[in-house]
Structure formats: structure tokens, C-alpha cells
């Protein structure tokens, strides 16, 4: 009977109703459409470029750039190549992203915890902060800090200062810069050794606790080793470092470290904006932990710090990590708005100036997009790996 039915089915099913055939048909159709689309635009692009006399290829990367860049982490001047401008822009983007992520995480944690506070005023203040800053476009916030606040700062001559070593004016923030001398390597080595000793201590402590149940206070000794050891080596090596203070010469400050106002405005805006989102992530992560977990930890006699460190935070992290990753990626992508105020990030330097100078639209846009794509995809891959490692194993 079964066999008979199958036979009937086969006879009845029209070929265009067979799921397998349909699936193949639709997929061929999809591939065909995509290929046709790309052939069409590539063909158009080639004809158009030939007509306008645009050469293709990446040869332009070796040409001399001939324009200056406001801030560069690596050595750069007009004589360097377009390829170098790419790296200058990339490093500036990475700088903003890393600093922004650190600052936004710190601020976001405080505000997220503030929103959960039992103190009515604090929690309302945190809520107001979140609802205000996440509902205002980031670009507007960048403009506000750059054009309305930083442009209102005093001129270099009347700059605000802290103890004649830190200056803040319309041209930026001037800090004393460290200058390393011979023998500073020993101090750096001491820091590495200190970290090594602390890791050893932590291992020893864990082992001892497992075997004997005794705990050993780790935090203060670790801080002591981390600060003390390099400090001793520093003085033994004869203080191989001094500070280079900014000095007002003519119309501007010379020496020291300079943080340009574009970077300051961008960092403030990115931090303030992203912190509002991170605060919500943190709040939802902490709220997701059932109250019973806190009560159970108390019942076991764990101290407040132990309860947070061993019970609450590890569980909250599971909830927090994925959306937090998204916020980090958003911040990195949002740093591209730098181009609006002229901070020399990848988009501004490469997709802006270099594109205008060379006219190599396709190659440059391709390279810029590839960088962001690589950053996004590799970060999310890393976070997925981390996430799967700490995910709850359910049976």
C-alpha cells in the first residue's frame, strides 16, 4: 500500500510542484539575477570610467600625497604616499574607537547602576540622562561640542591652566609629554615581571583555596607589587624619564602632548551618546539576574564584594556581552562622523581628501568599507566565541 501511494504521489505531482525542483529553480534564478546585476553595473562602470579617463587599479597608493594631516600617530608629511594616508586615517579611527569604548563603558556603567539606585533623585537623574542623549542625533551632539562649546574657549594667551603644566584653549588640550631616556627599558621590563608575579600569586591563591579552604587577600598586595616594583627599578636606574612641558611661544604652545579640539569634541560626543545606550544594557543585564541569586549568596555568608564578584557579575555578563558588543561596533562605526568636523579619521582622510585628489572612487570606497567590515565581522566573531564559551550549558 505504501509503495502504491508513493507511486501515485509521483504520478500526481507536477514537476513544478516538486519542492526539490522548485528549490533548484529558485536558486538558479537568484544566482542568475545576482550575476546579471553585477555584470550590468561592472560593465557600466567600466564604460563610464573609460569615457571619463579614470584608470583602475591600486597604483595610486604609491603616489605622493601632497597634503598635510592634522594629527598622525605615525610619522607623516606631504611627501609620503597615499598608501600612508590610509594608515594614518586608520590609526586615528582606531584611536578614537579605543578611547571612546573605554570612556563610554565607564560612564555607561555608572549611569546604568545609577538608574537602579534606591536613591530616587539619582535614579531619576540617570533616567533623564539616558532619555535625553539617546534621542538626539550624534552628529548634532558632535557639532554642539565642537562649534558651540570648544569654539567658546579662550585663545592660547588666556588659556585655562592647571599648575602651569596643563593648558586648555581653543586650539586644544596641552599636556606634559613623557620623554624616555636610556634605561627606561628596565622599568618596562619591571612592569612585565610584576604582572607575571601577580599571575603566579593568583594561581597560588586559587590552588590553596581549593585545597585548604583558606583565602588570601590578593588585591592590595597586587597593587603594591604593580606600583612598587617598577618604581624601585625606576629610581635604581636613575630616573630615566622626564616630562616635556608645553610652553607658550608666539601665538601657540610648543612641546608636550597636544590633543586637538576635534578629537576632544568627537570623544565627548561619542562617550556621552554611547554611554546612554550602554547604561541601558548594563541595567537590563543586572535586572535579568533573579533576586534569589543575591539571597542565596547572602545565605552562604558571602560578603558584599564576593557576592557581586562571584555570583552576580558573572551571570549578568552573559546577558550584557552581546548587546555591549553591538554598542562597541556602533561606536566604532559612528566614529566615522569625525569627517563632519574635520578630525582626520579614515573616512575623512581617505574617503574624503584622498578620493578628491585621486578620483579613484571605486578602489577607495572598497578599501574603506573593507576596513569597517573587517573590524565589525572580526569583533562579532570574537564576541560570539566568547559568548559561546560563557553561555549557560543546559541539558
Amino acid at each position: 500500500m505504501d509503495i502504491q501511494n508513493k507511486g501515485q504521489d509521483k504520478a500526481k505531482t507536477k514537476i513544478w510542484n516538486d519542492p526539490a525542483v522548485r528549490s533548484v529553480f529558485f536558486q538558479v534564478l537568484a544566482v542568475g539575477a545576482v550575476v546579471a546585476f553585477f555584470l550590468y553595473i561592472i560593465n557600466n562602470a567600466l564604460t563610464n570610467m573609460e569615457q571619463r579617463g579614470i584608470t583602475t587599479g591600486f597604483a595610486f597608493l604609491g603616489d605622493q600625497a601632497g597634503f598635510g594631516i592634522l594629527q598622525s600617530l605615525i610619522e607623516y608629511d606631504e611627501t609620503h604616499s597615499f598608501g600612508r594616508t590610509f594608515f594614518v586615517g586608520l590609526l586615528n579611527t582606531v584611536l578614537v574607537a579605543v578611547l571612546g569604548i573605554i570612556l563610554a563603558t565607564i560612564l555607561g556603567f555608572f549611569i546604568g547602576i545609577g538608574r537602579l539606585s534606591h536613591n530616587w533623585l539619582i535614579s531619576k537623574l540617570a533616567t533623564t540622562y539616558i532619555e535625553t542623549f539617546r534621542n538626539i542625533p550624534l552628529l548634532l551632539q558632535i557639532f554642539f561640542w565642537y562649534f558651540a562649546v570648544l569654539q567658546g574657549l579662550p585663545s592660547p594667551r588666556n588659556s585655562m591652566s592647571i599648575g602651569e603644566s596643563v593648558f586648555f584653549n581653543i586650539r586644544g588640550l596641552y599636556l606634559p609629554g613623557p620623554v624616555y631616556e636610556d634605561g627606561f627599558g628596565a622599568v618596562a621590563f619591571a612592569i612585565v615581571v610584576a604582572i607575571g608575579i601577580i599571575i603566579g600569586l593568583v594561581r597560588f591563591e586559587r590552588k590553596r583555596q581549593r585545597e585548604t579552604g583558606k583565602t588570601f587577600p590578593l588585591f592590595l598586595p597586587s597593587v603594591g607589587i604593580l606600583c612598587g616594583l617598577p618604581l624601585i627599578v625606576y629610581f635604581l636606574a636613575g630616573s630615566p624619564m622626564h616630562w616635556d612641558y608645553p610652553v607658550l611661544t608666539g601665538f601657540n604652545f610648543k612641546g608636550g602632548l597636544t590633543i586637538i579640539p576635534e578629537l576632544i569634541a568627537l570623544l565627548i560626543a561619542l562617550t556621552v551618546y554611547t554611554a546612554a545606550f550602554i547604561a541601558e544594557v548594563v541595567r537590563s543585564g543586572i535586572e535579568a539576574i533573579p533576586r534569589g541569586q543575591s539571597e542565596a549568596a547572602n545565605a552562604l555568608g558571602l560578603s558584599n564584594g564576593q557576592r557581586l564578584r562571584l555570583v552576580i557579575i558573572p551571570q549578568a555578563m552573559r546577558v550584557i556581552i552581546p548587546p555591549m558588543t553591538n554598542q562597541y561596533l556602533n561606536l566604532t562605526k559612528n566614529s566615522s562622523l569625525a569627517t563632519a568636523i574635520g578630525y582626520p579619521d579614515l573616512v575623512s582622510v581617505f574617503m574624503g581628501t584622498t578620493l578628491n585628489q585621486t578620483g579613484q572612487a571605486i578602489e577607495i570606497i572598497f578599501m574603506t568599507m573593507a576596513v569597517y567590515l573587517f573590524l565589525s565581522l572580526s569583533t562579532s566573531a570574537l564576541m560570539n566565541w566568547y559568548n559561546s564559551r560563557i553561555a549557560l550549558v543546559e541539558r
Partner: protein
Amino acid sequence: MSNKFVPLPDLPPPSNTVGVVGWLRTNLFSSPVNSVLTIIAFYLIYSGISWFVSWGVINADVIGTSREDCTSGGACWVFISVRLPQFIYGFYPPDEVWRINLMFAIAIIGIVALMIDKTPKKGWIALFMLVIFPIIAYFLLYGGAFGLEVVETHKWGGLTLTLVIATVGIVVSLPIGVALALGRRSEMPIVKSISVVYIEFWRGVPLITVLFMASVMLPLFMSEGTETDKLVRAMIGVIMFQSAYMAEVVRGGLQAIPKGQYEAAHSLGLSYWKMMFFIILPQALKLMIPGIVNTFIALFKDTSLVLIIGLFDLLAIVQSALHDPKWLGFSVEGYIFVAFLFWVFCFGMSRYSQALERKLNTSHR
């Protein structure tokens, strides 16, 4: 000697746990740390509000026509009121502004009608808003038919342009997003991988690079002789970008539908499309509302980026007004005004979506 037990009446609760004092004690001064925090927060709020009130209200100038009318030393709202038409309509010819107003009026009436529960024939109104209204709005804004003068898109600007880009972006990207989400969950490997590559690509790059690409590269991809409007190019960029985000929202909604719903639809003998349109998508759509509104809010804020490729949205108009030599130095007023407009729209939408969520919540928990 009958000693009957008569309980004394209950004592009132201690005075420091009820009333204003009690509330203050539990909510503001429950511990020394909290007391310190309260005082700091109170100081911050007080100084912020008192600064704003004295700058923006007491010492502000509202009435006037030029910057000479700003004499009080506080905020100069005259700048906003003088420029208001430009902030809202951009460079649209003043004689034709009634067309924009008419379009807004129809839109507001339609949206309000849809938001009120008791409106009769809601389905028809929704259909009108989705199908006929865009056509009317196009002819009203652009003109070129029914004796309306053509207004080129480069004259559009201000809040109008912001709203046009955001609305077109969301309405067009929703169906594309649904298609992509279905593709991503499809069992056909090639269709699935095409959708995944599309979604991951657009989600991985910043909107600004997409806009650059749309404005610089799109003309290269068009066949010879086709001229595309700058606004259309920006919109194509926004739609491609937005549909990828929309696809992920839709995917989330689809994944939240229990497997039993799919199985039940299959067992009834429904085809794939019937199953999707009558069983899965209507349920998923309800779950997607918060996500869609979030995407819309993000898009609404992101429209401000079009100023980088030279379109004059609300922020760009204000930005350019600040560079007017007659009105130099009023950037704080300008930015506060735009921030307030954006904030009202975004906050309003998020509140509305929360209300809608509660209303549509049919689960019996």
C-alpha cells in the same frame, strides 16, 4: 471581678516612616552614602536648571526681527523665530509652501485616525495611507502634474526633508527587509547565503560610507546618460542600509514564533506563502513593533548625516544659518532648538511604541 481583655488601639506608625519625611528618608537619605549622593545630585540639578532658566527664559529675547533685538544678554530665540520657516521648509518657494502644509495635514489626520481605537473602517484608512497617500505626497511635493509647478529636489530641505527621507526609507525598506529575512531563514543554501552576505555587508559598514558610495559610485554604475537626482541617490543608500537592519528585526520576529505554528500550518496543507502571510507574519509583525520603531528612530536620527553629502536636512539648515554673517554667535540656541525637535519626535515615537506594545499584548500572563 470581670477583667475583660480590651486591646489598646493601634499606635500610628513612627512619624519618620510616613509622609514627606518618611518618603525622604527611604528614598533619599537611607544611608550616609545616599545622603551625600542626594546632595550632589540636588546641587547638579539645581545649578543646571537655574542656569537654563536664567539664560533661556528670564534673560531671553523672543520678540523681534533682527539680532539688534537681542539685548538682554541671555538666549536669543529671535534667531529661531525669524528662521523658523526655513528650518521647516528649507528653500522651498514660499508661495508653494501650502503644498507641504497640505501634505502634513493629510498625514497627521491619517496617522491620528489610525492611532485612535474607535475609528471606523481602519483598514481602508491604512490602505489609503500606504498606497494612495505616497502618490499624493509625491505630486504635492514635486509637482509636475495637476497644474502644480515643479519644485526641484535641491530646493527641499529642513524638517520636511528629514521626514521625507526617514519615511521613505522605512516604508521601502520594510518589504525588502521581510524578503531578506525570509531568505535568511530559507532552506535553500544559495538564497540563504545571498541574504546573509547582503545583511552582514550593510550592517558592517557605517552609514556615512554608504552615503558616500551612493553619491560617488552610483553614477558610475548607471548606464550612460542616466542622470540621477542627488536626493534619490541618498535615498537609495539609506534604503539599502536600512533594509539590512530591518531584515534582522524581522528575523527576530520570525524566530520568536513557536515551531508548532509552522507545523500546524504545514499540517493544514498550506503552501509556504500562505503559511507566511496568514499564520506567521501577522504574529511576527506584532512582536517586531518595538524593533521596527527602534530602527525608525535610529534612521530618523541618522538622516542628519545627509548633510555630509550636501543635502539640506534640518541640521544642515541650522548649521548653515549659523554661518550667516548677520547671525553669528547663536550656535547654542540653534543646536538646542534642533535637539529639541529631534528629541520630541524620537521620544514620542518610543513612548508610542511602548503603549502599542502593551495594547497588542494578548498573552495571558
